């Protein structure tokens, strides 16, 4: 379920982010609590809480005393914006590296991208 390269709390944060990004967790809705996350993933609640706190610090969630954590207004835009900034590093760099290894030229790569779009 988790990959070992990054701390579990980081991956917890990412999973919640995904849900905000794809609208599973709409803005204004209640986010899962650290205990719910812990029970679901069979992880330590403190680890889950650490993941949620990352999102609070990033402005994606906010705490409401005594009730829980909620998805902040504008969270989706915030995430989309951040993901766009990270897109090149996260996705393009490995693709370019593998392409170079296999001897695929930039032009061939561009052609593949266009074809893939048509297929999708």
């Amino acid at each position: 379920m988790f990959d070992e390269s990054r701390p579990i709390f980081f991956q917890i944060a990412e999973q919640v982010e995904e849900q905000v990004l794809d609208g599973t967790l709409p803005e204004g809705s209640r986010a899962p609590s650290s205990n719910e996350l812990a029970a679901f993933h069979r992880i330590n609640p403190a680890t889950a809480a650490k993941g949620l706190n990352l999102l609070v610090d990033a402005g994606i969630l906010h705490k409401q005393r005594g009730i829980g954590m909620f998805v902040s207004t504008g969270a989706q835009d915030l995430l989309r914006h951040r993901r766009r900034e990270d897109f090149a590093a996260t996705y393009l760099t490995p693709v370019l590296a593998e392409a170079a290894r296999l001897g695929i030229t930039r032009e061939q790569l561009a052609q593949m991208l266009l074809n893939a779009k048509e297929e999708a």
Partner: protein
Amino acid sequence: MTTTPALELRSLSKRYRKRGNVVAALDDVSTTLQEGRIYGLLGRNGAGKSTLMSLATAQAFPTSGEALVFGHTAYEHRPTLATLCFVKESQKYPDDFEVRHALHCASLAFRHWDADFAARLVTELRLPTDRRIKKLSRGQLSAVGIVIGLASRAELTFFDEPYLGLDAVARQVFYDRLLEDFAEHPRTIVLSSHLIDEVADVLEHVLLLEDGRLVLDAPADEVRGGVTTLHGPTRAVLDAAGSHEVLARKDLGPVTQLTVKARYSGAELAAAEAQSIGVEPATLQQTIVFLTRAGERADA
């Protein structure tokens, strides 16, 4: 937080004579366990895990040093003992005791005992309450310890290899109920285990014993993935390893597999992957195996 630690070990040692030699079951262990966390007490069989727990709960006596439970030694001290629960892996029960006898006694002894919770655990773990404890399988014996350990809700609870002999379903029941109940009733829990991957994810903090010595005392998040294996062309792998401490090296022709004490992320990870190097972070168990082997080499 300025609260008293749940457990404080001060130069705790247990030595005994074995064929004329003095052997240390526990060797000068000092650490502090904070309230409200789940700790993993890890190490191979015979590393001193059970000894540590026996000394902490005053079931056995240290040769030197002391163990303070919420600031007080547990020895003959009722208020301190009342905060403890430690059912040994090799726990002895009165002759002819049936499971229900053990549970009834536990219900009288532990002040936070939750009878409904205990009954639910008994059902979920499929524990036959009117069977004699002597006749139980290893897994059922473990289940008795789990029911007592969880339903006692003691402020400081020790589980000694709790999953021994349990099937996959029962193990999941244990972890699920542990996390669920821990969330509702936070307390300090120490899980001892020689199978590390088994308990890795539920731990907040890791204590590793090796030949009676405490060789690792760190948050689980820091330990996990703290060791990385690089795989690829020798030149590129060595470049990627940089100045990180090398824990293991294997060569196969022009290819090298190098295990280094480092976590690869961000630019470093991107750079390594750009060089077509396989970057594989170690699991908690692998990390610990590498770290302890490194310790053995340093000794030799």
